[in-house]
């Protein structure tokens, strides 16, 4: 080894040491350059992706609203989970109805309509110790679909929304499978009734799985929509001739006479609350009054609480949502034969 190579090595070591030293003395600053604000009174809006969850496809317009909104400004419909309930216990019949709706929508030129997923799982049972963690999960297909969609699509600033029109079993089941799901999901449910002190998680839909209601309200960011309207006004007989002459128009026309004449069956209010910022007119913050007891037939009561973790929609207006329904239905994409 000569003096020159030794000198070069020393110089190289010196340069390396200098680079390491300089690199180590840096500082870090953080600047927040903006934030998104929900477009309405609720924590989510039409920019959030949604998973739709219901039992039957024929008693209201929930599926139709979700499909049309997904084709006209959002929210994006990323999943449809079909389960059962007391009035609609036949999973095969329920799924067949939803498949027919999806096929009609696709035949009518609508896009972004996912295939329905049949979810098998009974209502959850309150364990003896009353602990959520002790509840045996169903590990249902619906719960897996929620976990999968949340993993793919949920963002810290734009979580996945599970919009329910039936029991909350699969939502609670997803929590039992992965408790961290609550960081990535907001639940918006057409459920229960507003009361003088807040809301009851009874009919519609709240009575179907009280223990699931308890888990969801305690663990998720939860929005209860208890403001219904006369859903017969959505597609009155006088407007049936205005429906597009395509499979989706035919589907709506065929379904129109069978829509229930019962405001509480209008499960689409949860879709409207997410997709139309003006739908929710009055919103309260609420919290759970107390955990449900063994054998309860309804979910926990919600009481008004300005600092409560949940939202309760007590008044709504469906005018804008219904206008959107018809506007999108009449757009070129859905009027093509």
């Amino acid at each position: 080894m000569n003096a020159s190579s030794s000198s070069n090595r020393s110089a190289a070591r010196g340069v390396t040491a200098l680079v390491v030293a300089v690199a180590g003395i840096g500082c870090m600053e953080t600047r927040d350059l903006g934030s998104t604000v929900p477009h309405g009174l609720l924590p989510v809006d039409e920019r959030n992706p949604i998973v739709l969850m219901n039992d039957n496809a024929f008693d209201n317009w929930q599926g139709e609203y979700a499909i049309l909104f997904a084709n006209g400004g959002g929210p994006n419909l990323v999943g449809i989970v079909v389960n059962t309930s007391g009035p609609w216990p036949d999973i095969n019949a329920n799924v067949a109805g939803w498949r027919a709706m999806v096929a009609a929508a696709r035949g009518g030129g609508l896009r972004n309509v996912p295939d329905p997923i049949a979810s098998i799982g009974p209502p959850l049972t309150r364990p003896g110790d009353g602990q959520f963690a002790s509840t045996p999960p169903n590990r249902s297909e619906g719960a897996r679909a929620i976990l999968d969609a949340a993993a793919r699509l949920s963002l810290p600033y734009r979580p996945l929304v599970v919009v329910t029109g039936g029991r909350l079993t699969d939502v609670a089941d997803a929590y039992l499978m992965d408790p961290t799901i609550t960081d990535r999901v907001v639940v918006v449910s057409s459920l229960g009734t507003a009361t003088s002190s807040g809301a009851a998680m009874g009919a519609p839909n709240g009575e179907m799985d009280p223990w699931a209601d308890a888990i969801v309200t305690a663990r998720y960011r939860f929005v209860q929509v208890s403001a219904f309207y006369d859903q017969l006004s959505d597609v009155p007989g006088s407007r049936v001739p205005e429906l597009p002459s395509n499979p989706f128009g035919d589907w709506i026309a065929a379904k129109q006479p069978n829509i229930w004449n019962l405001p509480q069956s209008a499960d689409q209010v949860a879709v409207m609350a997410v997709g139309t910022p003006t739908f929710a007119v009055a919103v309260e913050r609420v919290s759970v009054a107390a955990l449900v007891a063994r054998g309860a037939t309804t979910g926990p009561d919600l009481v008004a609480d300005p600092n409560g973790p949940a939202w309760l929609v007590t008044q709504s207006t469906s005018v804008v949502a219904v206008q959107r329904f018809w506007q999108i239905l009449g757009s070129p994409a859905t009027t093509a034969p």
Partner: protein
Amino acid sequence: MNDRAGLIVRFGVVFFWALGPAEAKARADAFTVSLEYDASPECPDVAAFRAVMISRLGRDPFRDGAPDRVLVRITPRRNALDGRLEWRDVSGRWAGEQTFPLVTTDCVRLARTMGFALAVQIQLLASARATSEPDGGAAATNAPVAVHRDDRASNRPVTTPPATAIASKESSTVSVVVNPPPIPRQRPGPELVLGAGPSVGVGMSSTPLLLGRVFGGLVWSHVSIELGAEVSLPATTRRADGAGIFQQQLLLGLAGCAVLTRWRMCLLANAGAVRMAGEEVDISRSAMVPVVEAGARVGAVQPVGRRVFLSAYLDGLIVLSRWTATLDHVPVWTAPRFAGALGLDAGVRFP
């Protein structure tokens, strides 16, 4: 690196590859001298002498005020003529000469012979200057001709450049004593350089960033210093929903370089700010974040003509003051620890 950055790199490589021979010829053609002509009335006048030179070289090599001067003297003696080409440097000091003693009174012939010799000398000087000047003339300092100038008595009869042989063929009766013309020594003071150019930066945004800079500096024979101002085009880094952060860099840079012929090895320091703002969000905010970088530069300089030059460089930088830009309190962009830039400059030298 994106397409735009790649295009700049390819352009730079092709440009420097193609520039060498053409640039050397251009510099040789640009070589000029100032002429002082002193001859007796029976000799051709200065215009006729210049015409001889122009016809020999295919261009006019004379320009008033050029730093290299040549004195052409033809002095009559009894039944003879004494011709002399004398070179002087920019400060007027003697730098070499060639004598043409002629034992006739045919001054036209002598002027033609001297013109031919001078044309050859100018051509040789131009060629030598074209190959030695890219390093700022440093190589010329050690050229043998400089020794000749300082040792004129001993070298005068010894050195016989091509001019001697050519002149002898032109006029067999003319005997020539030659001291070859000098290549002027490098000036002792620094050169001022000014320039500008684009660069492509990486590690400054989520995609390569296009920057532009202006700079000025002083160049000595072995070192140089440079001060520059640099600004980037705005760049936006977007998150999944289309919202994003806009960034623009504004920097001042100082470089100290070692000059090795056409190469430059530099230490760099940049300081400035990054202008940032949120885009496509419901509530947008803006900010200025200070930036301090330190690093090294490797570059090469390619002269184009006597004053203009092009240079290419590669910077490696350590980002000392890093930053994270967030939207909804979620990081969208964090400045990495290291950054780099690849650039091309065009500049002008001032003596």
